[in-house]
């Protein structure tokens, strides 16, 4: 073992993790080399000095400030969970009332019958489908989803006041889906 090799084993010898053969080689070298002996003594001294550096105490503000921040984060998380839970609960509660439950079932029956008749071409001319876009149909859609409301308002503001052309239902739906996907991406990207 030469001086450079001995130096490479300083830490392992200090921490007593050398295997028997290396240990023998290391100790033989040190016994014969005064320079390495001195360097190893100084090495041990300086490692011990580092290990004995005093610990810094946290300031008295650290814990209270952190707990405050954590409780803010906690109520933020709870706030988000809370609103979704209440919204869903309210919707379910509405349909627990007999009158609303009855109306719901009636509406469902009407919708199913309507679709059935419509598909068979009983009531409407199918070619007219793409051209029939009324403001009312948009309003209905707007009312069903809060996300659509936000997007629809945004679209409205971009249009000129005198512009009377209205987009068809289909492009609006596509627009809404795309926007919603990108919004979801944005909200998850903020994590760790």
């Amino acid at each position, binding site marked *: 073992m030469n001086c450079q090799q001995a130096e490479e084993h300083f830490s392992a010898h200090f921490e007593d993790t050398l295997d028997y053969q290396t240990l023998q080689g290391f100790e033989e070298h040190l016994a014969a080399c005064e320079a390495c002996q001195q360097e190893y003594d100084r*090495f041990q001294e300086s490692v011990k000095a580092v290990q004995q*550096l005093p610990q810094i105490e946290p300031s008295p503000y650290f814990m209270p400030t952190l707990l405050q*921040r954590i409780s803010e984060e906690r109520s933020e998380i709870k706030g988000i969970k809370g609103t979704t839970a209440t919204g869903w609960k309210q919707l379910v509660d509405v349909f627990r009332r007999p009158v609303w439950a009855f109306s719901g079932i009636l509406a469902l029956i009407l919708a199913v019958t309507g679709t059935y008749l419509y598909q068979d071409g009983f009531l409407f001319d199918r070619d007219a489908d793409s051209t029939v876009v009324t403001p009312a149909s948009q309003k209905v859609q707007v009312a069903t989803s809060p996300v659509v409301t936000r997007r629809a308002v945004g679209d409205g503001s971009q249009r000129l006041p005198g512009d009377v052309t209205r987009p068809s239902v289909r492009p609006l739906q596509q627009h809404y889906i795309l926007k919603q996907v990108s919004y979801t991406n944005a909200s998850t990207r903020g994590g760790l």
Partner: protein
Amino acid sequence: MLDLDDELMERYQKGDEGAFTLLVRRHQQPLINFIARFINDRDNAEDLAQETFIRMFKAAHRYKPGRAQFKTWMYHIAKNLCKNEIRNRERRDKYRVDNVVNSGSEGHNDTEEIDLIANAPANPAFQPEVELERKELRNALQKAIAELPEQYRLPLVLRDLQGLSYDEISEVLELRSGTTKSRINRARLMLKDKLKPFI
């Protein structure tokens, strides 16, 4: 078998909100010490330690007890925050130096000597000369650690000041165990040379 940290994390995940506070109490001092030694700045150390805990709190539901240690996870997050802080500081310093050079005013070295041990508990058997010598050595040590290149300073601080095992350090720094060992040995050799006037 789960260690106490994992048990506390599991409790927190099951709704025991006090468990996370206990985890913070257990680790606040080692974390602040690690950050302060790594960035050589006590005041910012507390801010970064807070940020570390907040990030852990936000991601706590994703933590899988037994797979990674709470401690190594904490140091890993803190290490990344510290590296960002050091980069930002270097950028700020460069901007400041550039401005000084451009404005033609006299350059001066305004790197502050921050006393990380100013709040250390007083020695009951106070002897002025011994204390002065000790303080000189501590200051020299502090300076020597701060001057080590980052890739040597990080494992040295984790080993000799935080007391992590070689395996834990390898996990925090994402290094192979051989690399961790040789970097720690190299860092100690560098310190020994820097401390020549004192030891």
